């Protein structure tokens, strides 16, 4: 019987780090997600506007970017985990870029990020690497729920698909962070 290979967390973190794409403004996948969407603006006028959904999501992504910055600068993260945080932050930057570009395509104005101090992160409660990982894991879990709650509201299905793509990425972050905390990485069959 072949042995199941479970990589150490260090190996895992290293792989995530190496897989980092250059942080080009929008990756090819992101561009493809929005390609051929010149009709984006032609959404129905009734109900929640897609641009409103996108701007709320953008606000949450901007906070996640700032939160990872706090984590990275805290001095609490050791090397493989630090690389992981930087890689995940890069993903959130790519999500924010995608959302901002979709907002512009819809004729809207992307909301500006707050000043780092204005997020009032509970930094006094972050005393160890595990605290930072727990904080990041909770943010990622919340982000998965937020996208799940946004998807049914989109008028444009391509935007719903883009949100699903981001949801998948953030669910992976959540799983890896749980793994780093020594918890079951995927605790349930469904996310809520």
């Amino acid at each position: 019987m072949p042995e199941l290979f479970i990589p150490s967390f260090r190996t895992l973190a290293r792989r995530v780090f190496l897989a980092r794409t250059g942080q080009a403004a929008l990756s090819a996948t992101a561009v493809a997600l929005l390609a051929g969407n010149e009709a984006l603006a032609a959404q129905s006028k009734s109900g929640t506007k897609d641009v409103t959904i996108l701007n709320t999501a953008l606000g949450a992504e901007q906070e996640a970017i700032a939160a990872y910055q706090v984590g990275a600068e805290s001095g609490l993260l050791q090397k493989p985990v630090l690389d992981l945080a930087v890689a995940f932050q890069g993903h959130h930057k790519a999500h924010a870029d995608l959302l901002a570009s979709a907002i512009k395509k819809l004729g809207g104005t992307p909301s500006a990020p707050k000043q780092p101090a204005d997020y009032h992160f509970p930094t006094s409660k972050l005393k160890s690497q595990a605290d930072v990982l727990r904080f990041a894991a909770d943010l990622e879990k919340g982000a998965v729920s937020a996208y799940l709650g946004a998807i049914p509201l989109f008028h444009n299905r391509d935007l719903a698909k883009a949100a699903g793509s981001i949801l998948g990425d953030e669910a992976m972050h959540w799983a890896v962070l749980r793994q780093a905390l020594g918890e079951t990485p995927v605790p349930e069959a469904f996310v809520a």
Partner: protein
Amino acid sequence: MKRGNVISAAGLLAVLLAAVPLAAFGLPPGDPARGEKVYGRCFACHAIDRDRTGPRHAGLFGRRAGSIPGFPYSPAMKKAGANGLVWNEETLDKFLQNPTKFIPGTRMTYAGVKNDQDRADLLAYLKEATKEAKQ
């Protein structure tokens, strides 16, 4: 005949009203510990004690909608507050079930907590956790 119908309708209404306190707005009893887990779904945008993408929840019960000073609410949420919407178990139950239906134009673009038990648990948690004294 007609008169009889009216009386029985009134009687029925009385029975229904009497039942309200027992079955708080039709929700089952809530478990705050489970509700804290449900609150994890709000954590991308909210915290109890600080404004984020969404406003802080401290002091939520009894507060007028859209009334945290300085928070950039949507015109729709501000208007709902100006028209007298105050957050309590009943209004939160309706809002959280389907935010964009309850307040069209809200920036809380979230489909809602559809499951009655989840919502009851969430409200039980929020009631405890948002008490101002806890800050």
